[in-house]
């Protein structure tokens, strides 16, 4: 009869993710135990590996940059009720834009190349998400299906483009030539000693700006208002004269453009050339980041940092703890994604019940509310 009372905001935003994270670490610890290693040593290795020194932090931030972009991409679409799981493909295709600009203009200066590469990444990523958005808006093809299909299409296109278009004659692998100095985004290590020899680059500032911009977009603009109306209640948005089809297409394009920023970080900032699979599934991690961050920029920033730390710390782990192979590290990372992302609702009912028991007044209020509703 009575529904469980929604969690108070602090519990929803702080307590629940922490509980999920804790569970993930406990289960990961069991896995480590199973192969005969000390979980506490492994845990320490991850933390030190992620934050132990400037070098490690630099790597953590580099990973986090990607996850901010893909997390925001998922969140923007989610606020409009759309589930964009095509961040991988959008970021991958955006690489074409970045590489084209960088290859064409790398004899000039990075200050010229960067803004153009930014636009090219946004355009190509946006385009790759606009098509599923258009299909959803005009033809009713569900974006979940189309965006994941577009990931595969993107992969095939990139293999073709790298082999047939971007690969110079004298190189064996499917990759473009390395950009000249003018086509490279400066790394933070050039200005800040401790980050030397790490991939973290200026695109991290783009990520920070994107966090603020998405916040403003969703909660402080009229478009954000329309987008949230659509996400909550498509009938009400039609009632309000909001064009649902236009809103879907624009939102998907924005989402794809955000995912495309991964290419700015990877292609122009780190690899300095177009390579196969440079996205490394950052698009999928973005789903977990957005879930864990409750689709809010602050949460996404923190969740991206966490996943960056896991990636970096996990990489270090295999060197510190003998017997923990690369595959074991992936399992641990997957467990964290599983518990904090896919199964983030695991503790919700229990936590709701616990909180209601702790506070009978609130419990009664919730029940009363249910009664009033059933009476009307």
């Amino acid at each position, binding site marked *: *009869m009575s529904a469980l009372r929604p969690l108070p905001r602090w519990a929803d935003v702080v307590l629940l993710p922490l509980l999920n994270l804790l569970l993930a670490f406990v289960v990961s610890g069991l896995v480590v135990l199973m192969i005969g290693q000390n979980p506490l040593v492994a845990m320490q290795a991850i933390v030190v590996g992620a934050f132990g020194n400037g070098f490690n932090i630099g790597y953590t931030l580099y990973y986090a940059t990607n996850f901010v972009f893909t997390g925001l991409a998922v969140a923007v679409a989610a606020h409009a009720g759309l589930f964009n799981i095509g961040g991988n493909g959008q970021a991958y295709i955006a690489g074409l834009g970045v590489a084209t600009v960088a290859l064409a203009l790398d004899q000039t200066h990075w200050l010229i190349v960067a803004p153009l590469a930014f636009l090219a990444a946004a355009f190509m990523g946006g385009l790759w998400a606009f098509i599923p958005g258009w299909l959803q808006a005009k033809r009713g093809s569900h974006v979940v299906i189309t965006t994941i299909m577009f990931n595969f299409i993107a992969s095939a296109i990139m293999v073709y483009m790298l082999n047939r278009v971007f690969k110079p004659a004298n190189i064996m692998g499917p990759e473009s030539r390395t950009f000249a100095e003018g086509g490279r985004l400066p790394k933070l290590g050039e200005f800040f000693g401790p980050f030397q020899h790490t991939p973290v680059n200026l695109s991290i500032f783009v990520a920070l700006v994107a966090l603020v911009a998405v916040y*403003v977009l969703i909660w*402080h*603009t*009229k*478009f*954000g*208002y*329309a987008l*949230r*109306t659509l996400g*909550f*209640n498509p*009938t*009400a948005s*039609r*009632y*309000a*004269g*909001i*064009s*649902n*089809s*236009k809103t879907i297409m624009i939102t998907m394009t924005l989402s794809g453009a955000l995912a495309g920023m991964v290419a700015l970080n990877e292609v122009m900032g780190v690899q300095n050339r177009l390579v196969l699979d440079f996205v490394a599934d950052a698009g999928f991690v973005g789903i977990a980041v957005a879930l864990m961050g409750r689709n809010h920029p602050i949460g996404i920033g923190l969740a991206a940092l966490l996943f960056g730390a896991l990636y970096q710390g996990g990489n270090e782990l295999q060197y510190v703890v003998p017997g923990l192979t690369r595959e074991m590290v992936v399992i641990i990372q997957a467990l964290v994604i599983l518990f904090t992302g896919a199964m983030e609702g695991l503790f919700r009912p229990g936590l709701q019940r616990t909180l209601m028991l702790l506070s*009978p*007044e*609130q*419990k*009664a*209020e919730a*029940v*009363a*509310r249910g*009664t*009033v509703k*059933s*009476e*009307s």
Partner: protein
Amino acid sequence: MSSDTNNPQRPSMAAASAPADSWAIELEKINKRFGAVHANKDIDLKVRRGTIHGIVGENGAGKSTLMSILYGFYTADSGTIRVNGEVAHITDSRHALALGIGMVHQHFMLVDNFSVLENVVLGAEDSGFIKPSLDRARRELDQLEREYELEVDPDAIIEDISVGQQQRVEILKALYRGAETLILDEPTGVLTPKEADDLFRVLETLRAQGKTVILITHKLREIMAITDYVSVMRQGEMVDTLKTSETNPEQLAELMVGRRVLLRVEKGPANPGKTLLEVQNLTVADDMGVVRVKDVSFSVRAGEIVGIAGVSGNGQSELLEAITGMRDQKSGKVLLNGNEMHLRGDDGAARARAGGLAHVPEDRQRMGLVTQFAEWENSILGYHNSPEYGGALLDIAAVKKQAAERIATFDVRPANINLKSSLFSGGNQQKIVLAREMERNPDVLVVGQPTRGVDIGAIEFIHNQIIKMRDAGKAILLVSVELDEIRSLADRILVMFDGTIVGEADPATATEGELGLMMAGIANKEAAE
């Protein structure tokens, strides 16, 4: 509608002098608290066996809580329940059924793609094999149907039969399980007037057979028409229990609200001016492509209220949606102030608004509000692109300031613009929508079901606001399935049946019977006149 004249055989006089052991249900000092909310305060209620006992009260008065206690959904904090004179501690609905208490919920609990028979048996099977249960049920059902004149084809599939028949299945389910006392929660909310009459006949048969019926409703007319006794609840308390024959709707309304309420709307004569809304040959299909509005034409002039009456589902919803730009029309024209509106496309509603048309939708929770939004966010729904709320950036301070002013003007409670909209009561949600649509001073106001699920106190306010708009020279199109509402508010009534307007009536002269015939599609305009 059955009236007081056709049930002189009421056993109420006999019941009044019956011995004390004739109580079917006795509730004594029932208390139920939900924290700060005292939903039931020291409730005493005695229901005589073999009577129809009405319980009225506004939303939140505690009717449903009380019945939930009786049916075993909640346990009371304190108090005694006696069933047939025996103290009962009802722990769940299975237990209530064992004691002979059955409940017909407002929203039916039926499996749509099961047959009537299968639904009746569901949960009451004899063994793991279904066939013997069904055979036994078929025999018993046949007997029950004859005994209580509840004809339903046992092999019909639920989704193929009418709502009225589905309700019969719910009643049969309860009787099949041996219910002696039947609780009906707002049973007529989903029924046509004809189906409601049929239901009342069934209830009378049940009473004649010695069953006890508890009828929860907010419609005073039904109370007057069918019940023997009526109990009034207000804010968790039992205000009074009266013999229906010794009271009247005005007294009941006053008891429910706690102050005098005008049941009739007071309005002066209409003073119609030029045509503001004109609909020409409008044809509209529903989502499945079925044509629901067929070549409809009418007009609404400044300073008049045109009411569209009809049984729910005869195309009124599609008509409203097409006029307000929410649904593409197949053909026809809509003119606002003489200008043809181009409403096709999924932003048609924005163009309708720009043309001076405001829309209070039929379903405020599904259309009129985003229930997850704070009140202030909903206060601009549909008008958010207006320059007074800023450019690309939303001027939140301006929106909030205006929302606070309106919430005061329309007496929305609680007066908190930051509260989530789903937490307001139905009446206050409707006020939020009305404030938004009326305060912009539109030429034409289209209103669907303005008082559905709204308290009596708020109904009065809403009706007065609509009259005020009319008197300010606006054209108002009102669609309601509540015939009383149409008759008391409208200056002209159009009756809709099967997608066409079958007649026009003058509310001052048309009788309920005439309108009812037109709504049933039996008589056309000429025959009614």
